[in-house]
């Protein structure tokens, strides 16, 4: 009996090992005929994107005989942890997807190769948008990744509902958004104004209104600060903005949106029950696949604050090279190639704001729902490009804290003034170290 048990356990363990893909990294990576094989790992995996990447890598291999690329695509939820384990073990990864959220810890642990030297004199560098350059080389002059595109909020709206409510066009400012949402909202008909985000990762939308109200004094290198050096949460403008935001929740959003995360918000817009949604461009593809027809919806630029300006913070991710890579030269070559012309197709197919200046001339980005993005990128004085401190060590802790505190305010258990005071203290302390 005991022997049987031991055999069973051994068999199960072996099976488990096979399942978890315990294939060790091919150290040498020298394939047939002296080819170099690069291991590339993606993070924000989805099946369509993986196919697209494979196609791109096949083109790269054609253009660069002697280099083969093996793509590793872990499931999104575990990808960053998997990448972390690979980097920690010091083998099995040459090129990897680096996100603004992971660049901090990865570079701090000395797992990322600094490409600054390799990018000097690279002709592709001048073709990048200013936004992209800002993220490619950080404040210390280090280049840990080249972005492949940007995620940035803009206002999805229902053209038909806005018109029915008697408005000439989509809201341009937060004030207009609040009044339009309140007018459209009618819970008895299961119709709501704004898809409010009270659940996971709610700080993005909240910061959007705070930054719009502080647009004249924002520190563009760190949008959680104002030019006086204090935190954005310490200003009287933020108090006004937060109270407005809570008003938007109370008068123009579903009661249950206290708990809404990404899926619920997007669903509320695509199922036709909610008129406004502040979200990233990848939602364009989701709405295209929904029951809403093309003439029922559109995308407008981010709502502006009282001074007619708004900030446009961007989340980003890109391609970087592992410090432990034995083929850095080829790996950098691949990163440069991915950051050239192929990046525009990658941005189109993934609904990302593109990284090349030339992409703005592309018809694709000039029409329909994309027009709002082009309007924002071509008016940098109105939609000020800013960087949020997303690479801070405490960013995930902050996301959780901000989510919990905002929910407390929405549930009436905390005042807006207390929330701002707490956040001001939190960031001040963190920056003081």
């Amino acid at each position, binding site marked *: 009996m005991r022997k049987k048990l031991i055999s069973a356990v051994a068999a199960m363990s072996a099976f488990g090992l096979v399942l978890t893909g315990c294939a060790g990294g091919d150290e040498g990576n020298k394939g047939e005929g002296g080819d170099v094989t690069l291991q590339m790992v993606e993070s924000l995996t989805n099946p369509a994107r993986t196919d697209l990447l494979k196609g791109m890598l096949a083109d790269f291999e054609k253009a660069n005989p002697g280099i083969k690329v093996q793509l590793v695509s872990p499931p999104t939820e575990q990808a960053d942890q998997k990448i972390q384990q690979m980097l920690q073990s010091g083998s099995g990864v040459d090129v990897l997807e680096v996100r603004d959220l992971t660049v901090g810890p990865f570079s*701090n642990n000395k797992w990322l190769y600094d490409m600054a030297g390799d990018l000097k004199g690279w002709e592709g560098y001048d073709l990048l948008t200013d936004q992209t350059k800002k993220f490619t080389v950080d404040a210390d002059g280090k280049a840990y990744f080249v972005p492949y595109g940007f995620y940035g909020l803009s206002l999805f709206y229902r053209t038909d509902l806005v018109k029915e409510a008697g408005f000439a066009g989509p809201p341009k400012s937060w004030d207009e958004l609040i009044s339009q949402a309140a007018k459209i909202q009618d819970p008895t008909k299961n119709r709501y104004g704004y898809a409010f985000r*009270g659940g996971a990762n709610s700080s993005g939308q909240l910061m959007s209104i705070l930054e719009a109200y502080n647009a004249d004094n924002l520190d563009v290198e760190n949008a959680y600060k104002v030019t006086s050096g204090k935190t954005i949460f310490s200003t009287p403008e933020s108090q006004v903005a937060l109270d407005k935001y809570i008003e938007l929740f109370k008068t123009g959003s579903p009661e249950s949106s206290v708990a809404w995360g990404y899926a619920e918000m997007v669903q509320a817009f695509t199922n036709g029950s909610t008129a406004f949604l502040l979200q990233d461009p990848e939602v364009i593809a989701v709405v295209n696949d929904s029951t809403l027809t093309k003439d029922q919806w559109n995308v407008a630029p981010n709502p502006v604050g009282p001074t007619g300006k708004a900030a446009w913070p961007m989340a980003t991710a890109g391609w970087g090279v592992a410090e432990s890579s034995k083929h850095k030269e080829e790996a950098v070559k691949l990163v440069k190639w991915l950051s050239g012309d192929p990046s525009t197709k990658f941005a189109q197919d993934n609904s990302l704001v593109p990284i090349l200046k030339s992409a703005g001339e592309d018809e694709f980005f000039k029409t329909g729902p994309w027009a709002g993005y082009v309007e924002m990128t071509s008016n940098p004085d109105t939609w000020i490009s800013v960087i949020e401190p997303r690479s801070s060590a405490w960013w995930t802790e902050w996301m959780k804290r901000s989510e*919990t505190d905002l*929910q407390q305010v929405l549930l009436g258990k905390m005042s807006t003034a207390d929330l701002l005071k707490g956040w001001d203290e939190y960031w001040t302390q963190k920056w003081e170290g």
Partner: protein
Amino acid sequence: MAFRKWSLWDLTSTPFVGLGNFQTLIADPMFGKVMLNSVIWVVCSLVPQLLIGFLIALGLRKKFRFRGLYQAVVFYPWAVSGFLIGILFRWMFNSEFGVVNDLLMRIGIVSKPVPWLANPDLALVAVIVANIWYGVTFFSIMILAALQSVPDELYEAAALDGAGRWQTLTRVTIPTIRSTLVLTVLLRIIWIFNFPDIIYAMTGGGPGDQTQIATTWMIQYTQQGEYGLASALGFIIMGVLVVFTGMYLMLLNRERTS
């Protein structure tokens, strides 16, 4: 790891901090709330699971047409991942588009949608309902197996003595399967205490940390890269589980020797 400052942010320096992580956790105002929630989560999930599971097992004991099919349907939830069930229930409890509110409104129990997962008092109710649905099956399986081992002579003797249904249940059935009941309950306590899947998928511990239990709190720390604190919390969870496991093994031994 539990005794070191071990943060993903800086793995180049992981100094020994002794009981520092434990002190940080216990000093956190969340600690008491999380432990209380864990107890509520276990007790309020377990009792209904046991009662409903028992009733289903009694119902499935007698032979009737399609009993096999019934059993398969009843036991089906056990084969589904807890995380998946959490996601399904999250949408079922969705205030505007969820089937739960739709049913309640059609029957006329409520007049407007109930914000289940957005209301701090109702969110815990919602996750517990989902957990009850998920766990009833396990009790049904275990108790049914035990019931089928109760000799028919005992029931015949009870009937001869003029025992009614209730007396048969309390004097014959329950005493005979008592050991299975006790062991199953203990096993389930360990299991439920250690089971974050449904809460994680339904509320993520929200709204405002109202549905945070020890294991979801631990997940939160690992997501924040605070492995030192997460390990210390893991230690505390282990401590609780060791107590119950010890009781389980003791009872198991006693049953064997008797």
